[in-house]
């Protein structure tokens, strides 16, 4: 790789951040890195907004009486919390924000396949978000994020227009997601560099690829579902509304055909981030590369066949429930394979506990609990008892928040030096990680207990026997909220004032670390040839620059042990 240095021709002063200046140069940029950062900013705002709703909900639940808000406001709060978190934050966060920034650089290309479509998908996201958030002014939806009919299709207190506005918002957001998916599949398929066969791809790319397949094939069904719901609401179609001969259980089939695979849109890219981070910070080839890569695809495909496990008690037939339960277990296998492989990667590694690694290890802890409790819910007889209780709430928060948010921070701290060319403060990052981890467990673990004890979800008031659990949970929520704010603060501080970052601060060997930090506008002058992404011994730490360099480029006195 002697030609490697030649790839980085742009002078270090000319980065994508200062290549062009002014707000307009960001607003109309076609550069995937800037679009990625704009996504990051929007999804981070969505996380904060959703987080505020969550804290309001948790505060109201401090006691069974009215503390902050009335029934109706509470119902709107948990609906908005779910809708904002799912559609505005989790689904676009890792793929659209980190994916947009990192994917082309990992491939050594100048941009994604369709830069205009990429920018369009960002603006579609913004328009969809405006529709969804506008619904708050139209007196807010109170249907739950699942929009179940006939509640959503029949007249409700103050939610007449809000349901339509939010459904249209989510409809529009769907297309943003579809376009991102199309873009990534096309990019990975046709623009891989020389030397990067399918099985030399970094695992993050495999994860994003699997995610994109789901985005392209599942999201359109959500779109048609919400279109039908909107028309049902406006004109009384009678497809889903039983008052007109429609079938509300059919709506659930439609809804979950998308929304179950969507769970994997949320967690697969997170797993991709973890696979990168664990390998790098163990300085060891990731164990079971092919199994991890294939398990991503397996999860994506099996994900399309298990939607009915959300409907075990909904009036779905016995036959369908049994088939869906059986298929659901098939997801357990690839998920377990991933966890085992990550743990085995640690074995005989050379482990460094920098912040990204701590977040990644926390991810494994939380995801393991989330995955194991998923087994309870996939088991028919047990699910009958646990369905629609706090057990389910705890389970999917462990997977989606424990999973995605932890991996999001792992990824952000890992790639932040690449994003902005500045290092973060390890102490802030680690303390924030500890707070998030503790806060998360304190919030959601008690919910498993009260769910098993029968506490139903989406309840404004509750029986007194559940109060201690609710109070622990509320305390945890505040710790969690504080931890997340601190994690963000660490990142913002680093971007503004952090010390200069080397090109390769972690000793990772995927292509994005071979360009400068932050990358030049063009990423690479010409596409570099790919090397083994997990050959960590090709790199040594260079004290002088505080980062890692190729063995052959290292000073003769290099610190090889």
């Amino acid at each position, binding site marked *: 790789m002697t030609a490697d240095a030649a790839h980085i021709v*742009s002078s270090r002063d000319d980065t994508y951040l200062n290549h062009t200046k002014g707000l*307009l140069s960001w607003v*109309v940029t076609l550069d995937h890195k800037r679009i990625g950062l704009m996504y990051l900013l929007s999804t981070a705002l969505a996380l904060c907004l959703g987080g505020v709703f969550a804290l309001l909900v948790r505060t109201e639940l401090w006691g069974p009486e009215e503390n902050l808000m009335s029934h109706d406001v509470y119902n709107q709060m948990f609906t908005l919390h779910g809708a904002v978190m799912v559609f505005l934050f989790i689904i676009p966060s890792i793929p659209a924000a980190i994916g947009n920034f990192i994917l*082309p650089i990992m491939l050594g290309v100048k941009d994604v396949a369709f*830069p205009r479509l990429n920018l369009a998908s960002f603006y579609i996201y913004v328009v969809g978000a405006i529709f969804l958030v506008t619904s708050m002014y139209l007196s807010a939806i109170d249907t739950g994020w699942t929009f179940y009919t006939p509640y959503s299709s029949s007249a409700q207190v103050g939610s007449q227009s809000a349901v339509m506005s939010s459904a249209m918002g989510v409809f529009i957001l769907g297309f943003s997601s579809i376009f991102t998916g199309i873009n990534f599949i*096309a990019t990975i*398929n046709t623009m891989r560099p020389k030397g990067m066969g399918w099985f030399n791809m970094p695992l993050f790319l495999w994860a994003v690829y699997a995610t994109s397949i789901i985005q392209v094939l599942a999201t*359109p069904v959500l779109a048609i579902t919400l279109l039908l719901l909107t028309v049902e609401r406006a004109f009384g*179609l009678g497809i889903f509304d039983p008052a*007109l001969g429609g079938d509300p259980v059919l709506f659930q089939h439609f809804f979950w055909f998308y929304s179950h695979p969507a769970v994997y849109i949320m967690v697969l890219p997170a797993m991709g981030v973890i696979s990168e981070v664990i390998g790098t910070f163990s300085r060891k080839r990731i164990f079971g590369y092919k199994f991890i890569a294939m398990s991503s695809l397996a999860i994506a495909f099996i994900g399309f066949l298990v939607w009915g496990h959300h409907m075990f008690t909904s009036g779905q037939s016995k036959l369908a429930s049994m088939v869906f339960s059986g298929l659901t277990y098939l997801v357990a296998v690839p998920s377990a394979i991933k966890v085992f492989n990550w743990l085995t990667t640690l074995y005989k590694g050379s482990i460094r506990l920098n912040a990204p690694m701590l977040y990644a290890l926390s991810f494994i802890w939380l995801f393991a609990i989330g995955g194991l409790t998923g087994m309870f819910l996939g088991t028919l007889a047990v699910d009958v008892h646990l369905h629609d209780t706090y057990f389910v709430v705890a389970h999917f928060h462990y997977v989606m928040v424990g999973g995605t948010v932890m991996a999001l921070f792992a990824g952000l701290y890992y790639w932040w030096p690449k994003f902005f060319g500045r290092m973060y403060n390890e102490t802030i990052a680690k303390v924030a990680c500890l707070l998030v981890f503790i806060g998360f467990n304190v919030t959601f673990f008690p919910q498993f207990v009260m769910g098993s004890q029968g506490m139903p979800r989406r309840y404004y008031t509750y029986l007194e026997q559940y109060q201690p659990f609710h109070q622990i949970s509320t305390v945890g929520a505040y710790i969690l909220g504080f931890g997340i704010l601190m994690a963000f603060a660490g990142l913002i501080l680093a971007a503004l004032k952090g010390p200069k970052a080397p090109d390769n601060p972690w000793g990772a060997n995927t292509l994005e670390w071979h360009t400068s930090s932050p990358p030049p506008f063009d990423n690479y002058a010409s596409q570099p040839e790919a090397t083994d992404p997990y050959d960590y011994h090709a790199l040594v730490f260079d004290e002088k620059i505080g980062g890692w360099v190729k063995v052959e480029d290292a000073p003769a006195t290099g610190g090889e042990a």
Partner: protein
Amino acid sequence: MDAAAHESHDAHGHDHHHDPRLAHHFEDHQHQFDTGKLGIWLFLGQELLFFGGLFCAYSIYRGLHPEVFEEGAKFLNTNLGAVNTVVLLFSSLTAAWSVRAAQLNNKKGLILAIVLTIGCAFGFLGIKYVEYSHKLHEGVFWGQSFHPTREILEEAHVTPGVVPMPAEDGSVDPKAEKIAMLKPNLHTFFSIYFMMTGLHGIHVIAGILVYLWILRRAIRGDFNSEYYGPVDFTALYWHLVDLVWIYLFPLLYLIH
């Protein structure tokens, strides 16, 4: 737009290609074409799933209530449907022809083929308009708005008792109407009919808009044997619209 244009032209100092139609991140025209084609096929894939939802609703309601669909189809004009099928098939031919013309550097042929395609699309919408307006004029709406007149019920030879027959003065017994709507009935058929043909119609309109843009670029002389991706991709989209109609026609019009 200035900044974006600035970026893409001033992308890097040592431009190794000068064709502005070739984006800077592709190696050559073939690479760009293959990528674009993959993109459009992915888009068509999602279109299939998008329509798939409606086909799902259709299958379930027809599978469980075939009699409703038999009655419903009586309202539809099979001849107009068949004519529209032919119009759309012809437009598919001209769309495919436009790709051939572009590949052969035949600018005149390209323009003619696109104009014919757009013309057929308008023809299709015109016939659809005739069908829609007749139905809506006679109260044949979707779902809860379904209040057919006596005339159209007699014209369609609807089996007595399927929906309440309006009295001479046009009034309907509200109780009978409510009972008819409790289960899937003609109003459900027309919900599905209007959703499917309506969504298909919106795709036709979108196709017209894209083709007008392609026409403008064709007249400007953008396309040649090396660069004709947009013509090909639009044609692929147009064929998909045709493909959906190929199924809609027998599923809605040809029911015994």
